[in-house]
């Protein structure tokens, strides 16, 4: 009889799950899935040593373990804290956590340019998702944001440091995937920047993966820049025989044209298999690829709205929000009637004589008088 492995029982937001010893709280929460999973901006399960930096995944440990049920005094980074048997974790049920997370989102955004309308990452940006879910509408930051110049790191990758949230993922990719890292963090504090030594180009067969791991639009694909918005392109699963990598990719189509190639990502937005630069940047002809079928985008992303969202092979559109959003109900971000000044609920349109003009609503009579 095989020796039975002892599993650890851990309770996250009142949901108990059994996980193997050595699992982190974040990965235990991912086994449960849904709302109780803390967001992670810097942790990447495929990159050793990543995590602990962005502090968005902070959770409260209400009881350390069955043996030592004392609560941990500080909030802990769930991506780097391993579970103990009988641990009780509070994520969305803890006010402290939600407050701290709101603070972290605010900190991440104060120096972020919020140039989503012109950013290639918009639509698949983790920071966008995070801000929608945990951020506030307004900002309290009334100063100039830090700005950096754009850099082309070789022919394929552009670095837009102003958008960077310093998650260090790209540094780990270069460390762990390529044999020689030529970029890293220069300086410290809020003036720290990702840079190569004297603007050296990044040239390694696998360095293109830094684009995929970047949670924001700091590292973008120069072959795709400003070609299209991601939500207008259709992701399909495709593969080719590649002698360098697995050759399994998502090809992003518009019509019959391949606009962009990325690695396949799982439901946490993490790359399943790294792909080489040749597959990513140079094979943009549809004949280079064997198309398997529509790709499933598991993440609650704007990309999954409007087109393929169901299981691979299904042609019927799935219509309900929970279906599209992987069981999640859409969140009401703001009530347009309470914020719109044009058409406030208390305004009786019928009581306004004649055709209504914008001036009617602001009490400026002279504008309508001219008519």
């Amino acid at each position, binding site marked *: 009889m095989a020796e039975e492995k002892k599993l650890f029982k851990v309770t996250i937001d009142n949901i108990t799950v059994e996980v193997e010893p050595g699992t982190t709280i974040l990965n235990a929460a991912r086994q449960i899935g849904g709302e109780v999973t803390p967001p992670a901006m810097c942790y990447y399960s495929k990159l050793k040593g990543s*995590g*602990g*930096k*962005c*502090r*968005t995944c*902070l959770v409260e440990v209400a009881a350390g373990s069955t043996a030592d049920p004392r609560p941990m005094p*500080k*909030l802990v*980074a769930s991506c*780097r804290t391993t579970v103990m048997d009988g641990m009780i974790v509070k994520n969305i049920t803890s006010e402290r956590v939600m*407050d*701290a997370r709101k*603070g*972290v989102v*605010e*900190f*991440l955004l*104060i*120096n972020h340019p919020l140039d989503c309308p012109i950013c290639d990452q918009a639509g698949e940006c983790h920071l966008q998702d995070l801000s929608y879910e945990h951020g506030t509408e307004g900002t*309290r*930051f009334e*100063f100039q944001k*830090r700005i950096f110049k754009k850099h082309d790191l070789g022919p394929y990758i552009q670095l837009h440091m102003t958008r960077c*949230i*310093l998650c*260090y993922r790209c540094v780990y990719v270069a460390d762990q995937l390529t044999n020689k890292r030529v970029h*890293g*963090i220069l*300086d*410290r*504090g*809020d*003036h*720290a920047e990702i840079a190569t030594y004297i603007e050296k180009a990044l040239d390694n067969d696998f360095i293109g993966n830094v684009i995929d791991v970047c949670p924001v639009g700091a590292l973008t694909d120069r072959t795709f820049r400003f070609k299209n918005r991601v939500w207008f392109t259709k992701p399909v699963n495709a593969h080719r025989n590649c002698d360098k990598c697995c050759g399994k990719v998502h090809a992003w189509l518009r019509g019959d044209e391949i606009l962009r190639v990325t690695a396949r990502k799982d439901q946490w937005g993490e790359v399943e298999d790294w792909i080489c630069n040749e597959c990513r940047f140079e094979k943009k002809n549809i004949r280079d690829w064997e198309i398997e079928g529509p790709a499933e985008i598991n993440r609650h992303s704007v990309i999954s709205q409007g087109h393929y969202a169901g299981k691979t092979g299904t042609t019927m559109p799935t219509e309900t929000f929970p279906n599209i959003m992987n069981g999640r109900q859409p969140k009401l971000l703001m009530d347009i009637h309470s914020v719109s000044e044009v058409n406030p609920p208390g305004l009786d349109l019928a009581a306004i004589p004649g055709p209504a003009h914008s001036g009617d609503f602001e009490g400026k009579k002279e504008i309508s008088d001219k008519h």
Partner: protein
Amino acid sequence: MGRKLLLEHAGAEGIRYYDVYRKKGGYASVEKALKMTPEAIVEEVKKSGLRGRGGAGFPTGLKWSFIAKPEGVPRHLVCNADESEPGTFKDRYLMEFIPHLLIEGLIVSSFALGSNTTYIYIRGEYAWIPDILEQAIAEAKANGWLGKNILGSGFDCEIYVQRGAGAYICGEETALIESLEGKRGNPRIKPPFPAIKGVWDRPTVVNNVETLAAIVPVINLGGEEYAKIGVGRSTGTKLISACGNINKPGVYEIDMTISVEEFIFSDEYCGGIANSKKLKACIPGGSSVPILPANLLLKTAKGETRYMNYESLSDGGFATGSMMGSGGFVVLDEDQCVVKHTYTLARFYRHESCGQCSPCREGTGWMEKILKNIDTGKGKMSDIDLLWDIQRKIEGNTICPLGDAAAWPVAAAIRHFRDEFEWHVRNPEECLRRNYGLAHYADEREVVA
């Protein structure tokens, strides 16, 4: 006059050199320690109640007992000489004037911990001190106190001096270890603690210069005798580096039984406030501990006299107390502006934040900008609450204590001197010309001209 253990011979001429130091009874503790077992030394240190002098005040004996002892893996002792806390300069004094005391403490501690390779990590700004230390190490080695088979005990030990490149963050033990390994000085995420995985993933103990120097009197006197000095859990003597608006700034050795009032005003120590001014506020333990107004500094909230020791200084928690910290005693007189002072500190922490985790990286810069606005008369009333909210969201949410260190001074300044902040906002022009003054937190002591 308090008892002096560390600075007893500090005034002797030529104490920097081996011959004089040896004549004054130096290296006696090594002779004594090498006849003991390492476990017995750790036990002596535990008995002595010696607490870490770097700032956190963690019991040294306990810290030593945590070190993992896996078979066949070398262990390391690292001396933290990256003394970068603004207002703290006690380690510099020790290393500059009595380097052999540190070397002696290092040899004993290395023996206790089984460290054959011991490092001194010194901050880059102390450019001239590595030479002094290296000379002391060479002298010690020439006289058989270092190297192979020390005093025939079979114990080998080498001490190396490693210079930092000048970063406050490298005083944090895991950042120090990273820097020592030749990497970027980013703090590591704990656990694992250095006692399990430190330098090159080997069990490591990182101790402050003064802690290691204090091992010498602990061994010489014996743990129990050492514990009799001082009061309660604050045993032994402590070096205080006093600076600011006082008559006699400098490094003083105190035995932790004297009151804060005596320390500031007696001629033996600080000698009173300079230029016959009044005492306004004081940071009792280095720039990152909460600032205290004069009334709370001299007496606790309960009306008891405040003493210069770990317990008394932190009496009342952060609401009405502060911390012993690293012993950087900064005194502010009535002419000093708390807003400007807080701004200066915020600027320091913004500059020194490593930029690894977001609350500290972004929050320190934000606080600095707001404080600059308030200081220059461009602030708003809501900025004060915003500052409070920012520091609250930094504190405790970062990887290393730098986030806390940046948040505490701001929090304490707002807590105790909110009226001064508000005055700055309400009088944007006047605040550029003159100082707010003493107001209700003033020291009521009569000034003797």
